[in-house]
């Protein structure tokens, strides 16, 4: 399959706008589940407002949240796909910029030192474009994530030492969720990276935070940790928006990687309740949009 980069540009534009407007079904179902289980009256009111907002965004064809986020594109290229990688990056960047200027969206991206805004959601190394490869023949998937800053600011890395064990990892997660309170727009998905190098650990936390609800870590030891941590996090009573209640997190997601004998790294990345993402799957049959 040969990928036409013109169609990538148009798709990259559509994906940004689509992600900002409609939440994936797994997140909508997550709201229903939290609402059914919530016991705190204030928390129930807040969840009801969030659910109403999803309806209003759909009804008024508007964005769910004002934060257009930092644009992230995750590209997964299957076997047999022929694409000019450099042209692909350029096309995604142009699509991201066009979504911003043509819709128009708030450009939330600035130079880190001068704080200058180019008003197109782009800048040095942004949009962030990640590449991976799959064994799906003749298929390329682009996932777009507009990562909100309130939750992204709740990102931390700790290079625990082996003597701290998995207890050190778990304590770090509990203490950070406690410290963050309502600042990260709960109910959240708490993404936890365990192992790897420092940079891989932080990246794993982002993969975990942006994974669909209902998915599980494919490392059984990681999956076990997900369940235990989710129960513990939701026992703290922080609740939606940090105003009290049972619904602190939809889930805790864990991703793991092998690490060094002297290392025990743990990283946290949070996804807010506006857990937005959109995907496009390119196959010889055409381009299919999804979440």
């Amino acid at each position: 399959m040969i990928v036409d980069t013109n169609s990538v540009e148009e798709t990259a534009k559509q994906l940004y706008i689509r992600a900002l407007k409609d939440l994936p079904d797994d997140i909508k179902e997550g709201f229903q589940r939290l609402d059914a289980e919530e016991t705190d009256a204030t928390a129930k009111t807040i969840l009801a407002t969030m659910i109403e907002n999803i309806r209003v965004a759909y009804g008024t064809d508007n964005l769910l949240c004002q934060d257009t986020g930092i644009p992230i594109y995750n590209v997964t290229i299957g076997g047999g796909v022929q694409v000019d990688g450099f042209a692909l990056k350029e096309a995604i960047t142009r699509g991201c910029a066009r979504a911003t200027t043509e819709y128009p969206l708030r450009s939330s991206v600035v130079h880190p030192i001068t704080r200058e805004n180019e008003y197109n959601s782009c800048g040095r190394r942004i949009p962030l474009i990640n590449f991976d490869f799959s064994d799906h023949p003749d298929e390329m998937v682009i996932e777009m994530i507009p990562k909100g800053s309130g939750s992204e600011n709740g990102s931390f890395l700790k290079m625990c030492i082996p003597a701290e064990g998995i207890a050190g990892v778990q304590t770090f997660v509990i203490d950070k969720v406690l410290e963050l309170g309502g600042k990260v727009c709960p109910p959240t998905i708490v993404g936890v990276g365990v192992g790897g190098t420092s940079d891989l650990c932080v990246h794993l936390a982002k993969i975990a935070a942006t994974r669909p609800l209902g998915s599980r870590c494919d490392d059984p030891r990681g999956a076990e940790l997900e369940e235990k941590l989710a129960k513990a996090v939701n026992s703290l009573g922080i609740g939606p928006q940090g105003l009290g209640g049972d619904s602190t997190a939809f889930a805790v997601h864990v991703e793991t990687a092998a690490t060094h004998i002297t290392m025990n790294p743990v990283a946290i990345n949070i996804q807010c309740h506006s857990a937005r993402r959109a995907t496009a799957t390119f196959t010889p049959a055409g381009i299919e949009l999804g979440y």
Partner: protein
Amino acid sequence: MTEHNLSLPCSEEDVRKLRVGDQVILQDTLFGIRDATQIHMFDRGRKTKFDLRGHAVIHTAPNVKTVAACDDYPAGYAPVCIGTTTSARMERFTRPLMERYGVRVIIGKGGLLAESQNAFRDLGGVYLAIVGGAAALETTWIEKIEDVDLDDLNPESLWKFKIKDFGPLLVAMDSYGDSLYRVVNERASDRRAAALASLRVVG
């Protein structure tokens, strides 16, 4: 829990009536303010043309569309999506906003900290929690963008919104030293040991 309908600008007496847990619906005018707006106002000596005395500010940087100025869009901006950002980053600006500009009400998400709580008590102010991330809904409470200042900072300009039935908002920090965030944080801290024990961690 009492429900209040508050027109802006308001007086210290109005604000002192609001207690943690009450609900408030705002009317008339609301100013939008953000990190860069306040960095420029308080660290770089920029002045605003607006009189903020007795007013409410919301922590926001909206999505807007540039249009020809007319009655509906007097500032040349149409609202697209207006929401709320995390307040805690702007903690150090609460007191100067109140002391130098006479602001009475701050609206945001996630709460403010002890210094703001003291400023609310000393000067007569209140923090109203809005549901973060519910911007599509919030946008329906805004009638128009009336005016804008410090617009070189766009989208972090100082925005003047005309509002109608803006809320309900929850009084989360009042002028008597009470804060829902502190109550929740203290309770969560008390539960930390049990949470760690459930993970078989001795904390």
